[in-house]
């Protein structure tokens, strides 16, 4: 039970990051590695603001803007300078390493004895796990609600169609480059927010905490997709939260098996590789006929990669 609650609370905090990765990976259809830099960026900004006496909730909120700035840089390089998405992400993430060190002033910044969002909630009389559950749950809920509403607006639809079909979007007068940059910004804003939450949960920010961010994010997305396919956006975002929780659970189980923590990333990498392979295997198995997929499927069958 303890394990379950712990995975759930941690999973909620990580889910914000995974949702951010989803926006670029699935909605914009690009693999944006900026995540590896914007995640610790969020932790760095939040921690150093808190250490310098700012209210935790305000510090947490401000990380959104830090992440958006990072996303803007990657998006700008990708769309305006025509640098391939993978590379523009690597460039930003590399640069952010130095920026993060500057912000923290050292490689590790502790929040020992400082107020954090989690501790504020704990002071209302909850234990740590419940406090994390409450903070994580309400933030994830708010994020999903906002995204759900946003992606139904004219701009939200335009971003989705840009990622889906660039030529068609352009032919319909959508400024596709601007839409991509906005997508990058929202994505990395959320990833930084998640970094800020985890720093407060762990009680410190660390310069190396971004390593493997993208793998964790992708694994959460794919786990969610493997279990539930063909979903509308809001439900899809919920499955990412679920994927994120399941991922945490797997990690905790592995740790319980006395696996050396330093082997965890190897485990994550293997897990992602398998999760990426699984849908292709599912494809080969005979499957149930999905309901109301209309008579003719010609030209309409979607590969899972498009989701």
């Amino acid at each position, binding site marked *: 039970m303890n394990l379950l609650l712990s995975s759930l609370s941690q999973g909620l905090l990580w889910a914000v990051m995974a949702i951010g990765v989803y926006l670029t990976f699935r909605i914009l259809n690009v693999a944006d590695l900026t995540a590896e830099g914007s995640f610790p960026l969020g932790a760095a900004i939040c921690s150093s603001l808190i250490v310098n006496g700012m209210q935790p909730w305000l510090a947490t909120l401000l990380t959104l803007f830090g992440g958006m700035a990072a996303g803007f840089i990657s998006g700008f390089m990708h769309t305006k300078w025509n640098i391939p998405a993978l590379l523009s992400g690597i460039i930003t993430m590399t640069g952010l390493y130095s920026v993060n060190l500057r912000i923290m002033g050292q490689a590790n910044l502790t929040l020992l004895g400082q107020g954090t969002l989690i501790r504020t909630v704990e002071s209302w009389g909850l234990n740590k796990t419940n406090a994390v559950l409450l903070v994580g749950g309400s933030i994830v809920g708010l994020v999903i609600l906002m995204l759900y509403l946003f992606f139904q607006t*004219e701009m939200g639809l335009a971003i989705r*169609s840009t990622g889906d079909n660039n030529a068609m*979007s352009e032919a319909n007068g*959508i400024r596709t480059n601007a839409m991509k940059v906005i997508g990058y910004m929202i994505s990395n804003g959320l990833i930084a927010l998640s970094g800020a939450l985890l720093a407060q949960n762990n009680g410190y920010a660390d310069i190396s905490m971004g390593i493997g961010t993208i793998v964790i994010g992708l694994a959460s997305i794919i786990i969610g997709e493997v279990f539930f396919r063909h979903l509308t956006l809001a439900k899809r975002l919920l499955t990412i939260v679920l994927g994120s929780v399941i991922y945490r659970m797997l990690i905790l189980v592995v740790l319980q098996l006395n696996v050396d923590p330093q082997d965890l990333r190897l485990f994550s990498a293997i897990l992602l590789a398998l999760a990426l392979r699984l849908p292709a295997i599912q494809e080969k198995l005979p499957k149930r006929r999905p309901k109301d997929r209309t008579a003719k499927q010609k030209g309409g069958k979607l590969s899972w990669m498009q989701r």
Partner: protein
Amino acid sequence: MDAALELRGIHKFFEMGTVNENHVLKGIDLRIEKGDFITVIGGNGAGKSTLLNSIAGSFPVDSGQIMLDGMDITSAPAYERAKDISRVFQDAKMGTATRLTIEENMAIAWNRGKKRTLARGFTKKQQHLFKEELKQLGLGLEDRLKMEAGLLSGGQRQALTLLMAALVTPKLLLLDEHTAALDPKTSQMVLNLTDQLISEKQLTTLMITHNMEQAITYGNRLIMMSDGHIVVDVSGDEKRDLTVPDLLDLFKRNSGQVVSEDALLLG
């Protein structure tokens, strides 16, 4: 009165200055009057698609001027031109966003050329309007507004794309062999729909086709391209009485080349 579209001395090169330099459009002059429905025909590499792409702004032209309804749009980016020019591609996949629902696709088209704001993507009233428009197709799509466009068949998608292109009346409609990839029956359905929409909304249209019969049957004016030039341009009564042999004859006389019907049909 301003022409719907006027092209003056359009030249387009690909890979200019390299050994692969390809001079695709060699000085195109064309004046399209409002309400014209022009069919464009020509062999492979004649420059038909390049002409359409130049008008739509997919890439800049190397020289010449493009005037749309009296406005110089030569250097306007594609998304700006999209306000007045809508298009349907040959590949049915190109015309709709696969993961968006039918109604969402229509909402994208409804806002063609407008700034995308944080207002709701579409209102109940617009949804009703989309439904009414879809009824025209007679494909039953009006009952599947929430279905992803990617699940439609090629013909259904092309019909939807066409409807979207005409949803907000464009000043110019560009059709790039939009029935070529469909089976004959579906192709005919989409063509009939095309004709119906064009005459209903009096759309100024440029339609590329690979089929001489189609080029002759539809529209009020016919253009034949060859090697980057317009070699045949017939309209009015002359176009109405045209037959395939006449057309081949005209082509031979004007371009000095002999062409078989097959070459064009396959082109």
